[in-house]
């Protein structure tokens, strides 16, 4: 059977992508962020060796608009092109998918009562791409196949934290019922504290973010109990993206081994990172 071997929680701030494309990763203000991912890249490449990355992200107005906005959407294609979300195509290779694996996931999730929107064409954007190039090299191509899994975290009502956790549990069941021997990593992306609207724009809460990093590792039940209101009050309206980390954590075993952790909050978003090994 296939297995979930690791989970990563990581911010997906678009400015990280801009700095990356402009070769500014070693500038003083960016170095603490980019350097923290180098050991994660090595750990993934040399120890975890995943075949597939399920990337839990949200679409920020790239492939979906409010005419028809899904709560949960899953990619079921062999290729996910780099999208254009308003500033052109980034210089990254398109992302390989594994349609057979995705359709297996989809069948398992739908029969498990998750009401997915199934996407055979899906352009991906910063929410998906920034975590990918932070965690994986891409020369000459991406070393893993990918499954984009988009969650509505921008137009309320959002799925609850508990629902996201349950989706993670269901993903684990789905992976473990796949007849191959694929090693699967799950990336939960977004956050941490930030707010992009109103006079509270720029709200940060590093203490709360660090407490989230503690709890996502060792007490996720405490996070599952949070309401969107709780998260927004403490950490800003856009911090609700963090519910996507619960999909990742729900896909992992109860106890995990922490391989890496980082936190940096230079501008308007708490940029967090945690890398967890399953069952360790």
């Amino acid at each position, binding site marked *: 059977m296939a297995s979930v071997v690791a989970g990563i929680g990581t911010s997906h701030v678009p400015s990280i992508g801009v700095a990356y494309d402009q070769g500014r990763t070693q500038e003083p203000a960016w170095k603490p962020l980019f350097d923290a991912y180098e050991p994660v890249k090595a750990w993934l490449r040399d120890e975890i060796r995943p075949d597939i990355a399920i990337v839990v992200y949200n679409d920020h107005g790239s492939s979906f608009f409010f005419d028809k906005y899904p709560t949960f959407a899953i990619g079921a294609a062999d290729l996910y092109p780099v999208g*254009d979300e308003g*500033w052109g195509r980034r210089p990254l290779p398109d992302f390989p998918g594994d349609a057979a694996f995705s359709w297996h996931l989809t069948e398992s999730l739908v029969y498990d009562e998750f009401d997915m929107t199934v996407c055979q064409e899906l352009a991906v954007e910063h929410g998906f791409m920034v975590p990918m190039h932070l965690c994986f090299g891409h020369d000459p191509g991406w070393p893993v196949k990918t499954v984009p899994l988009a969650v509505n975290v921008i137009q309320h009502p959002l799925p609850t934290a508990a629902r996201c956790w349950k989706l993670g549990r269901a993903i684990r069941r789905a992976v473990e019922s796949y007849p191959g021997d694929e090693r699967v990593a799950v990336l939960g992306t977004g956050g941490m504290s930030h707010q992009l*609207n109103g*006079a509270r*724009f720029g709200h940060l809460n590093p203490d709360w973010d660090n407490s989230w990093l503690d709890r996502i590792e060792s007490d996720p039940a405490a996070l599952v109990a949070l309401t969107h209101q709780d998260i927004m009050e403490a950490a800003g309206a856009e911090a609700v993206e963090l519910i996507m980390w619960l999909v990742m954590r729900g896909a992992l075993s109860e106890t995990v081994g922490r391989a890496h952790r980082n936190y940096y909050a230079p501008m308007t978003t708490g940029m967090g990172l945690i890398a967890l090994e399953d069952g360790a």
Partner: protein
Amino acid sequence: MPVQVDRNRPIADTRIFTGEESRRGYRINKFAMSLARAENRDAFAADEEAYMAGWDLSADEKEAIRDRDWRRIMDELGGNIYMIIKIGTVTGHGLYQIGAHQRGETYEEFLATRNASGAR
């Protein structure tokens, strides 16, 4: 079930993008979303008025876009930041300029509040 968005507990200086807001902002957000296509960005950059005329926008919405009045777009007209940023990109206003305007600060004032404003 615990209340996920508590309308009796508004968060100061914060707008939650609920269905009400999404309805209110539908027109301007749809317009902004159109700028995810390069040919539309080019058309808007070439002639803002002509491009706006092709969309269902109220006089207030057009005025706010003309005025780059990000605060009004966000607070009053139902703008969603992920859509509105696309108008900012075409008109040379990044996220942090839009944020400073929402805070009622100059860009420089806003940057001075940050921990490491080189990371932008």
